[in-house]
């Protein structure tokens, strides 16, 4: 613990600096408390190395600060790592790898302000946020060393995502936090409820923790795998999360589920005229009772020319006038013969416009 205590002032200063760069993080505290609870649940379930782990985990500042020297200050991370290794007594090879990836993460974090620690008053938030955001992120020592390996990979994943749209960093970050939170909730839920017999809570060995811990995080990336037993429970409930922003919910449902399933079930049909894929508007656009599909562009071109349906060669005007027989036609009949010459044109326009909007 001496190491982390010594490190904390420096990192706090660095974090204060970094605060200026960071946007508004109101949700961080909430997440922190959630994460605290979860961490404690997990640790108590884990029950390994009882006191030392708990001591490392429970004081938020100390625990999460332990990760920040790597990120914000030039302190060498290795001593801390060794302490970790000693306290956990887990595989040194794993540790080596974790250290390497941790360094990598740290350096990239320095480049992007969004990953740097939150603020001085919420040092724990910084760590917790990263955890929530990336499924443990840069604060590897705060909950368990065993999750470092998998989490550092998910950090890089997240960074790839973020790199795609750097201009709305904060939004993306929020979404990611929310998503990670939701997943985390679900996963812990699943672990407690549906898989109680797995060796996860094995108290003496770190290896089961290694095996079990990455799984919830990885389930995020292979969410659609057909053999994923968590899929039915966890995925739909993402959109139902109360704390979930509507936008990301829609995004998830629309992009992930909707597009994927639609793509598999029904490929977009091409317009038979221009061979371009029909968009949803085009797909529901049937200007002729013969049911011939075509895109709006081609329909317009045809109307500008001879105006016959490519499918049945009948005039769009007459067929649509006959088709749209409702109210306007009745009045045409009522008004008499002279109107009948004008009416079809008017009708056809209204009918052909109808399905578009």
């Amino acid at each position, binding site marked *: 613990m001496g190491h982390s205590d010594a490190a904390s002032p420096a990192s706090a200063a660095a974090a204060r600096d970094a605060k200026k760069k960071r946007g508004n993080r109101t949700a961080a505290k909430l997440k922190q408390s959630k994460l605290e609870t979860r961490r404690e649940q997990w640790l108590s379930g884990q029950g390994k190395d009882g006191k030392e782990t708990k001591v490392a985990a429970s004081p938020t500042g100390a625990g999460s600060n332990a990760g920040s020297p790597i990120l914000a200050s030039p302190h060498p991370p290795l001593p801390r790592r060794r302490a970790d290794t000693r306290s956990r007594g887990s595989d040194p090879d794993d540790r080596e790898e974790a250290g390497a990836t941790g360094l990598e993460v740290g350096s990239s974090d320095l480049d992007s302000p969004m990953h740097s620690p939150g603020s001085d008053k919420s040092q724990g938030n910084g760590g917790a946020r990263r955890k929530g955001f990336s499924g443990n992120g840069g604060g590897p020592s705060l909950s368990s060393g065993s999750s470092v390996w998998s989490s550092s990979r998910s950090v890089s994943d997240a960074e790839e995502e973020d790199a795609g749209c750097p201009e709305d960093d904060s939004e993306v970050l929020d979404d990611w936090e929310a998503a990670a939170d939701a997943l985390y909730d679900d996963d812990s839920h699943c672990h407690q409820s549906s898989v109680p017999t797995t060796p996860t809570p094995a108290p003496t060995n770190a290896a089961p923790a290694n095996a079990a811990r990455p799984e919830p995080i990885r389930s995020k990336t292979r969410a659609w795998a057909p053999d994923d037993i968590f899929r039915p429970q966890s995925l739909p409930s993402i959109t139902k999360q109360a704390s979930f922003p509507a936008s990301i919910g829609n995004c998830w449902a629309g992009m992930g589920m909707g597009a994927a399933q639609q793509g598999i079930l029904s490929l977009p049909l091409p317009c038979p005229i221009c*061979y371009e894929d029909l968009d949803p508007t085009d797909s529901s656009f049937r200007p002729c009772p013969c049911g011939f599909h075509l895109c709006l562009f081609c329909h317009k071109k045809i109307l500008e020319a001879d105006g016959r349906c*490519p499918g049945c060669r009948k005039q769009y005007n007459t067929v649509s006038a006959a088709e749209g027989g409702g109210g306007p036609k009745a009045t045409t009949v009522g008004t008499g013969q002279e109107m009948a010459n004008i009416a079809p044109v008017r009708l056809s326009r209204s009918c052909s416009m109808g399905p578009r909007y």
Partner: protein
Amino acid sequence: MVDVSRVQKELTECNRDREVSGVSIALHDGANISHLTGTIAGPADSPYEGGTFVIDIRLPGGYPFEPPKMQFVTKVWHPNISSQNGAICLDILKDQWSPALTLKTALLSLQALLSSPAPDDPQDAVVAQQYLRDYPTFAATARYWTEAFAKSTSTGMEEKVQKLVEMGFPEDLVRSTLKSVDGDENMALEKLCSG
């Protein structure tokens, strides 16, 4: 302007099953996508059986909203095809064209036209008369024309080269031209004459 992407897709689509359908399309010259060359196999159980008929295809700017202009390059004896210039009388290439049709369907329609002529709506009145009054003679003539003009690929390459060289074209040019039109003697001759 011609819808280039559609034409390219049509070419790919058409040439995918050329062995089965008996029709194929290729660019006439490498650069211009609005000038194509189609080939159709003479339909079985018709006087045109065994022949390969070359059709010159020109796509108007309004294609596919306007019909492609098609003309037989290979000489054909058929009531609905001019024996003089290969002009085709087929409704779908005129007023009954639909943008939903494709070059492939148009060529298949030509193939169908070969197997079932419509002498009541002739392009070539002489052939139509013969078809109506003396079908055996018509069939024999059609078969002879097929042998003479639509089966040039069956004769040896060297013979064709020899033939064209005798006409006064340089041998290397004749060979390259013949190669570019897949050994079609008539096509090669036309190409040599035009360029």
